C-alpha cells in the first residue's frame, strides 16, 4: 500500500492530530465526483502515518517554565527585591504559558533562529519517517509526504539534510511525492544560499533530486505563505527535470469558504488542490479527468456562502494590504489574522479549523 505521511504546521499538535485530515483524504478518494476512484475502491490502498514534532518545542517550553518558576521561588525565599533579577525572569517567562504567540509564532521563531531546535525537529521528523519505512523491509513502499505550513519548511530541510552530506540516505528511499501546502520554506530556509538547491529539485535524471513529484499549493490571501513565497527558478520545470514533475497551484482570492484560508482542511477541500494531489497519490494523471476536476471546482465554488466569502475576503484583503517585509511585521500580520479567525469562530459563523482551539489563543 502507498504510505502517506502527514506533517502538521505550527501550533499545539499531539498524537492523533491528523484523524480529521485522514478522514478528509479518504473521503476524497471515495468521492462520487471522481467515478474512477470510487469504482476502483482506491481508498483502501493507502495507509497514513502522522508525524509529530511539536513535542520538541513543548519540551523546551516546559523546561523553561519549570526552571523560571524555581528561580522565582528562590528570589522569594531569599527575600531579594531586585529589579534586574525580576526582569531577567520576566524575559525567561516570555516563552512560557499559552497564547497564540507562545504556542504558534514562537515555534516558528525557535525553528528559524535556534539551531539546536532546528536540528532536533528535523531529526525527530527523520526518525519517524525512517522507522516507518524500515517496518516494510525488505521492500520499501512508495510514499508521499503532505506537509502543511511550518511542517513544509521542516520537511524540506529534513529531506535536504537526509539526502546530502556524509551518510546521506540511499535515493531508493526518497518520497514519490512531496506535497507542500501553504509552503513557508522560503521564509525559514536556514541552510545557506537560496532555498532552491539542485538537490531539492524533483525527478532529475541520474536519480538526483529530493523526490519524483513536487507539488506546491498556496492561496492568494494566505498571510503565511505569501510572506516570502516559494518560487523555484524555471529550471525546476525544465529539462533535465522530467515533465510534470513540479506542480504549482495558487488559489485565487475569491476562492474562500472560511476566514482561515491557511487551514490544511480548507486547502484540501478545494478541487484545484486535491485533484492534482489525488493524481499524484494514485500515480495516474488520467484517474480524474480535467472535465471532472472542472465540474468539482464549479461545485465547490457554488457551495461558498456569499456573505462569508465577502466578509472573509475583505478581512483577508485588509491583512494582505499590510504586505509584511520583515519578520517583525509578519508576526504582527499573523497575530491579526489569528484574532480575525477567532472572532469569526466566536461569532458562530465558522468552526475553528486546523487543530486550533479557542483556549490556546
Amino acid at each position, binding site marked *: 500500500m502507498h504510505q502517506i505521511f502527514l506533517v502538521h504546521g505550527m501550533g499545539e499538535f499531539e498524537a492523533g492530530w491528523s484523524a480529521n485530515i485522514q478522514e478528509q483524504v479518504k473521503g476524497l478518494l471515495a468521492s462520487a465526483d471522481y467515478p474512477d476512484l470510487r469504482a476502483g475502491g482506491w481508498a483502501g490502498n493507502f495507509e497514513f502515518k502522522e508525524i509529530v514534532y511539536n513535542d520538541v518545542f513543548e519540551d*523546551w517550553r516546559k523546561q523553561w517554565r519549570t526552571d523560571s518558576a524555581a528561580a522565582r521561588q528562590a528570589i522569594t525565599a531569599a527575600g531579594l527585591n531586585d529589579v534586574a533579577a525580576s526582569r531577567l525572569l520576566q524575559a525567561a517567562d516570555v516563552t512560557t504559558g499559552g497564547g497564540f504567540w507562545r504556542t504558534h509564532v514562537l515555534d516558528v521563531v525557535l525553528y528559524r533562529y535556534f539551531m539546536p531546535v532546528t536540528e532536533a525537529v528535523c531529526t525527530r521528523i527523520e526518525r519517524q519517517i525512517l522507522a516507518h519505512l524500515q517496518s516494510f523491509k525488505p521492500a520499501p513502499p512508495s510514499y508521499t509526504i503532505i506537509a502543511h505550513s511550518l511542517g513544509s519548511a521542516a520537511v524540506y530541510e529534513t529531506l535536504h539534510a537526509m539526502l546530502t552530506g556524509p551518510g546521506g540516505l540511499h535515493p531508493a528511499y526518497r518520497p514519490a511525492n512531496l506535497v507542500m501546502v501553504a509552503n513557508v520554506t522560503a521564509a525559514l530556509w536556514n541552510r545557506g544560499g537560496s532555498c532552491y538547491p539542485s538537490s531539492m529539485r524533483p525527478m532529475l535524471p541520474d536519480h538526483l533530486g529530493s523526490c519524483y513529484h513536487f507539488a506546491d499549493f498556496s492561496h492568494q490571501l494566505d498571510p503565511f505563505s505569501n510572506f516570502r513565497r516559494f518560487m523555484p527558478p524555471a529550471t525546476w520545470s525544465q529539462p533535465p527535470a522530467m515533465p510534470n514533475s513540479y506542480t504549482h497551484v495558487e488559489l485565487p482570492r475569491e476562492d474562500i469558504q472560511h476566514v482561515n484560508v491557511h487551514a490544511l482542511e480548507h486547502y484540501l477541500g478545494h478541487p484545484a488542490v486535491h485533484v492534482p494531489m489525488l493524481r499524484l497519490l494514485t500515480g495516474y494523471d488520467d484517474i480524474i479527468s480535467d472535465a471532472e476536476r472542472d465540474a468539482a471546482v464549479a461545485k465547490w465554488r457554488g457551495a461558498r456562502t456569499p456573505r462569508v466569502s465577502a466578509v472573509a475576503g475583505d478581512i483577508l484583503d485588509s491583512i494582505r494590504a499590510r504586505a509584511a517585509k520583515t519578520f517583525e511585521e509578519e508576526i504582527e500580520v499573523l497575530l491579526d489574522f489569528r484574532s480575525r479567525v477567532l472572532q469569526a469562530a466566536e461569532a458562530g459563523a465558522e468552526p475553528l479549523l486546523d487543530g486550533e482551539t479557542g483556549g490556546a489563543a
Partner: protein
Amino acid sequence: MIRLQRFCVGVLLAGWVLAARAACSFPDPATPPADWTQALRQLEISRCAGGREDPSPAVKAVLAKIDAGAKAPNYEPLIDATEFLIVFASGHQGPGKPEPEAWAALRKTLDESAAGLRAAAPGQGQVPMVWIDLSRNPGQAVPVAGTSVQLVPRLACASGNPCPAFWERLDMLRVVRLMDSMSGLLTGSRLDEKLKETIQRDKRWEAYRADGQHQYWWELWANGKRMKPSDCPTAMEDGVRRRTGYCEVPEDQLIILHPDAGLAWIRGAQSKSDLKGAFLLELLGYYRWRWASRTSADMDSRAGVSVAAIYADRAGGGRWGFGPLIHIGDVNFGVTRARGTWSLTINSQLAGRYFDAKQKYLDKLKTGAFGAVETP
C-alpha cells in the same frame, strides 16, 4: 480440548489466508473484469503483483531466491533470481509478441543488473535505480535503456472481453516489483544504519536539553550560534556553500546570565530543610561533557565552571556574594565572598546527597552496623 484449539487456529489461519487473497484480486482469464485498467492499477498500488500474494509460480520462484539471498554470504541467489527473470523476459520477446521495445529495455536492464551483481564486492551490490523509478512511477513514461516505458498505461481493452495486453503488462509489473524488492534487500542495511544514526542523534538532542546544564532561551540561541562553524558540515552546491547533512550535537555550552535556585549552607544544619533558599545567577560560564561512546547518547564527565552572583539571607540580612560556581555531574556548589565573609551555596541535588549519606552513616552507627565489620 487441544483438538478444538487446533481447529480454531486452523479456521483463523484459513480465514486470514483467504482474506489476504481477497485483498489481492488477480483476474480469472475465464471471467474478465469489467475494467481491465482498474484491475491492473489495483494490482500495482496494492503491491500484489510481484508480491507474496501473487499466485504466479515464476514470482514465487524468484521470491524464494531473493529470500535465500538475504541469508547467503554472496550474491549468487540474487544473480540466480535475475537470470531467472532474464529468461522470463526473453519469453516475452520474439516475432509477433506485443510490447517488444518495452521488454527489450527491461531485458537489457536485467542483463546490466546481473552483470553488476557479478562484479560487485561483498556489501557493495546494487541494482540500477531505474527499477525504483519504474516502480514509483507506474503511470509515467520513464526512460529505460534508451527507450521510454510506461509500466501501467490505460489499456484499450473492452469490458468483459479478453485482454492480452493486461497479462503482458502484469508480467512487466511483476519483473519491476521483484527487482524493486531485490533493491530493497541490497540497500536495506543502509536504511538500518541511517535509522540507527538518526535515533542516536535524536537521543543526543534530548540529552542536550534535559541532561546538560539547563539553558534558557537566550543561552540556547547563543549556543546555537556557536555551533555553526565547528559542528555543521558544509559543501559547495550550485556554486554556493551550504550545510549538508546534520550538525553534530555539541559537547559543550556557554552559561550566560542563568538564574537558578540554590541552598545557602548553614553550619550545623541537620537536614536539607535547615538550609536557606538562595537566588543564584551565573553570569558567565562554560560547561562540557563527553558522549560515553561513539554510539552512545549518555553524557559522561559532565563538568563546568561559572562566575556567579548569589543572593542569600544570612546573618545580618540578605546580601549578594560573588565567586566561582563549580558543576560536577548534576551537582553544583559555589563559594562566594560578601563583605569579607566566605559562604557556600549548593544545589538541591548535592544537598540531598549529602544529608542522605549523613543519615545513612548515623543509622549505621545506631544499629551498630560498623561494629559487625571484622578487622584483620
